[in-house]
């Protein structure tokens, strides 16, 4: 039978053991040993059953009070042990916070992909959808359907790489020189309203130097609907330029010629390096040309089977490498396809 003395003894050994418990595991062992289902205090309480009622009440009360005290002591001890442990970490296991973390491999998208994505995002935000087309094209789509017949002097604007394949003494197949042929393909298979962009690779018969590559990437835009005018084209391009190059950009337009648009224009932004004062990047003009554009030629609208009196449209096209060069300050276009990791890892 447990007695008053037993309770006292249990308390003193329990508290002594508790003092000796120096870490979380020892504390848990102590809790199991004294307060657990098969613990010493629980055993003591179980033994009360054989005592007379009055004594049982008295001893039981003392035992329960002891349980509260032990739980309290355990909690307090646990807290002090934890504090001591933290203190130990703070004082004894200090880290050199300047050491690097174990490296995780860092993969990067090619800067052309990154630039392309930003351009596509800016334009899809204005309701344009992506429509890709073939890179190896028919002369028909690349030139003729764009109002550039054979022997037209405008063909000089796009020096061409031809596939070695002849039909009736003519070479009908080529590496597309621009993304514009997909304008025609999309118009052939859809009805207005049309609002598309065509990202993709293009190729030119062009010697490479710091600003010329024979392989390049373009984005073409096309919108055809009722009520589209030159002011919409201006607004769209201005918004695009500001999204790409900063809200405070000034956008300028000048007349230019592309056989498949009328009127035709070129879009320029004020040089964000010198802010119009004149520098190397803008060839001391204060302006940087970023894209060509215009109203879709009414003959092209008519050939697509749309009523040119009812439908108008605009088209624009730009070189991604040029835009990437401007954004990142890259001074030589040949970096993009040299794929030197020392270059690619900067983006």
């Amino acid at each position, binding site marked *: 039978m447990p007695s008053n003395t037993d309770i006292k003894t249990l308390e003193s050994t329990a508290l002594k053991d508790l003092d000796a418990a120096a870490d979380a595991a020892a504390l848990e062992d102590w809790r199991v040993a004294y307060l657990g289902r098969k613990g010493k205090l629980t055993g003591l309480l179980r033994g009360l059953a054989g005592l007379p009622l009055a004594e049982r009440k008295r001893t039981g009360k003392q035992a329960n009070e002891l349980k509260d005290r032990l739980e309290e002591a355990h909690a307090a001890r646990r807290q002090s042990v934890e504090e001591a442990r933290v203190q130990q970490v703070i004082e004894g296991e200090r880290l050199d916070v300047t050491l690097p973390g174990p490296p995780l491999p860092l993969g990067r998208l090619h800067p052309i992909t990154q630039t392309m994505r930003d351009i596509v995002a800016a334009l899809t935000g204005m309701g344009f959808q992506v429509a890709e087309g073939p890179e190896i094209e028919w002369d028909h789509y690349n030139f003729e359907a764009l109002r550039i017949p054979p022997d037209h002097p405008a063909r000089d604007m796009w020096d061409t790489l031809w596939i070695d394949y002849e039909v009736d003494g003519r070479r009908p197949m080529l590496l597309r020189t621009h993304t514009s042929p997909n304008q025609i393909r999309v118009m052939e298979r859809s009805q207005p309203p049309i609002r598309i962009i065509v990202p993709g690779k293009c190729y030119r018969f062009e010697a490479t130097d710091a600003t010329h590559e024979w392989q390049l990437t373009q984005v073409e835009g096309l919108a055809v609907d009722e009520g589209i005018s030159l002011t919409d084209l*201006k607004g769209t391009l201005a918004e695009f330029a500001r999204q790409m190059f900063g809200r405070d950009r000034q956008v300028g337009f000048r007349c230019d010629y592309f056989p498949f648009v009328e009127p035709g224009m070129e879009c320029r932004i004020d040089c964000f390096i010198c802010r119009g004062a004149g520098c190397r990047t803008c060839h001391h003009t204060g302006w940087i040309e970023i894209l060509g554009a215009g109203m879709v030629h009414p003959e092209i609208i008519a050939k697509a089977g749309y009523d040119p009196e009812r439908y108008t449209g605009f088209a624009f096209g730009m070189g991604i490498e040029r835009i990437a060069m401007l954004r990142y300050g890259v001074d030589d276009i040949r970096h993009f396809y040299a794929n030197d990791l020392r270059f690619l890892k900067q983006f």
Partner: protein
Amino acid sequence: MRVPLRWLAEYVDLPAHKEDLARRLTTAGVEVGEIIRTGGQWENIVVGEVVKVDPHPNADRLSLPTIRIGNGEERQVVCGAPNIAAGQKIAYAAVGARLIDGHTGEPTTLKKAKIRGVESQGMVCSEKELGLSDEHEGIRVLPEDSPVGADVAEILGDTIFDFDLTPNRPDLFSILGIAREVAALTGAKFRDPPIQYEEKGAQAKSKAKVTIQAPDLCSRYVAAIIENIEVGPSPDWMQEHLTAAGLRPINNVVDITNYVMLEMGQPLHAFDYDDVARHHIIVCRAAKNGRIRLLDRSRHKLNEDVLLIADAERAVGIAGVMGGHNSEVTSKTKTVLLEAANFNGPNIRRTSQALKIRTDASTRFEKGLSPHLPPIAAARAVRLMVEHCGGRAARGLIDVNPGEATQTKVTLKMERLVRVLGIEPTDSEVRGILTSLGFGARWMPPDRFIVRVPYWRTDVNIADDVIEEIARIIGYDQLPTSMLRGEIPPLIPQPRRDLRERIRDALTDAGMQEIITYSMTDLDSLRKVLPKEDLQVTQPLRLANPLSRQWEYARTTLRHALLETLAANVRGNHELVSLFETARIYIPRDGDLPDEIESLCGVVSGRQPDRWGRPVGDLAGFYEAKSRVEHLLGRLCVSAGYREAVDFAYLPGRTAEIFAGDARIGLIGEVHPRITEKFDIDRSVAMFELDLDAVLPHVPEIPNFQPIPQHPALEEDLAVIVRDDVSAAHVQAVILASNLVRAARVFDVYSGDPIPKGKKSLAFAITYQAEGRTLTDEDVAKERRRITERLRNDLDAELRG
């Protein structure tokens, strides 16, 4: 095209601010590519007047002129020029002036000097010293009215606009064309040059004959006869204009044809009349294999597509390109037959490309000149020859196929103007702009203009062409801006593109670097990575005009590109390099465009980094490539399987095909050392390839949600001993066949003692779980017995003790 502003100013008054003029022209579509200043470098060179010329005391060939240079100051210089004389205005360079050294041709600074014992206080300049020409025989004499003391730059210097013109505006390839634009943009008055002259003697028609045998290629031929010609140098002002425009003066007759070509845009040719057999010009197609020697002494073989100018006996020139050597104007020429014709643009372009001759004439003709221009240009040239070559013009012009005096008329509805430009200019604004450009504009109430297009504007044919004229003169920047309105078209799904972009994201997330390489390659590169038979069955498309042999074929694989890029980036250490590219490959199809297959290729090579990033870990191999593929396919929610495969580029036994459902979607493996060696890569490389079009059907649009099990799972390890050739996937499949097993993950492979030879141990962590109830230890024990039973029966597998 180079346009000297002094010349331009003869036809239109120019504003003072030249940069501003260049900007306005450029904005209107007439792009000034470069502004060149001659004379801008002349500092301390002023107009001086020769007061007197004293002899040099110590040298007969030298003289001592005294020069008045303004502000009452005079200087005595030493001069070697024979043409110096009192009263002349000359270019005086003070000490310190920047000049061209007359002997070396190099820029230099003028220093104080004593010449044969007499001090020279500066010098009198020759053209060479001024950088104007190579003339160094005498000094450059300035016009008499040049103000003494003025900067010589003001008298001799010029500004030249070098235009980058667009091919739709042949009219701008002339000083007059540019002058018309300037007039329209600034409001200044445009002045036509005079073309009248006095006719004398016989009718031109009686002196020569012109026959056009190919009217489809020559729509008009105008000829003039000028007799009594004295060939000699052309006047100074003409030589100066030509030189400034970039042409070399030759003689008065040739200079006049060039001068009028630059002035009016119509190429002309002067034949020596006496060299034209029977004085008969015949415009005809060349005979096959015909030959000709041109003015520049070059010889060419001809074909039937070439349009010739012939006389009664032989070819005397290639139409629109260059005249023949046999009929050129020489110092002995007495009579000139002047040609001003209109030739078919595309034909001239074909000829000029075929013969590889581009001339000032061909670049103008190929753009399509107005048939109205030849008689005007001919008259202008005849007038100049009468004036400057002592010529006597025969009466009238020979004009074959003058055609009808057609005039393009365009109806411009105001409604269309508003529809295209989005603004409504007033009637008078429209009329004002069109008139300034030489168009006629008649208002037809209630809503339209009838626009008469001037003959030189061959590019304007429809209402929208006229609208561009209005927009560019108003200035695009003056138009308001608006945003697109209206219906947004329905979404066009782009599954291939979406997949490609997801792949790029997944692989960069897995630490791989994206590269973009050239689409073209050479056969050697393809042969390195593809078996011969493949290249015979699928012969890659070849370019007819490759930029280099290196880029001659459209690639049918990406392998070589990844390996080349890897080779270029492998440095001395073994740093882990992992690259990928997604691009199209081009599989030829008979008589059609090639199939452009979206492909992916990736390579991994090098050692895994340690905690400090040093490449000291294991060499990356098959499994490192596979982990990237698994990461990718996991991202795409594609459940894929792998089985051993054999391929030309890969090492047997370390190669797998990747399949989804029944379809092969790609390959993965270690690159065969025989291949890496060809790329000069001296370390092992693991590679993978996916065909995006094959992957696509296995990519769920949206992953399917599986309810999270409500009842707890029990985990247990199971190790079995199987034959070496039994794959982990096979064992796993048997384990997974149990419907109480939710997952079975392999976590150890072991062979060697105490496992018998030819066998291996595979350990799996198995997760047991049932729907609707909590599994007991007994349930699991029972199921484990069933599984081991099946493993024994199917795979001869023993439980490892």
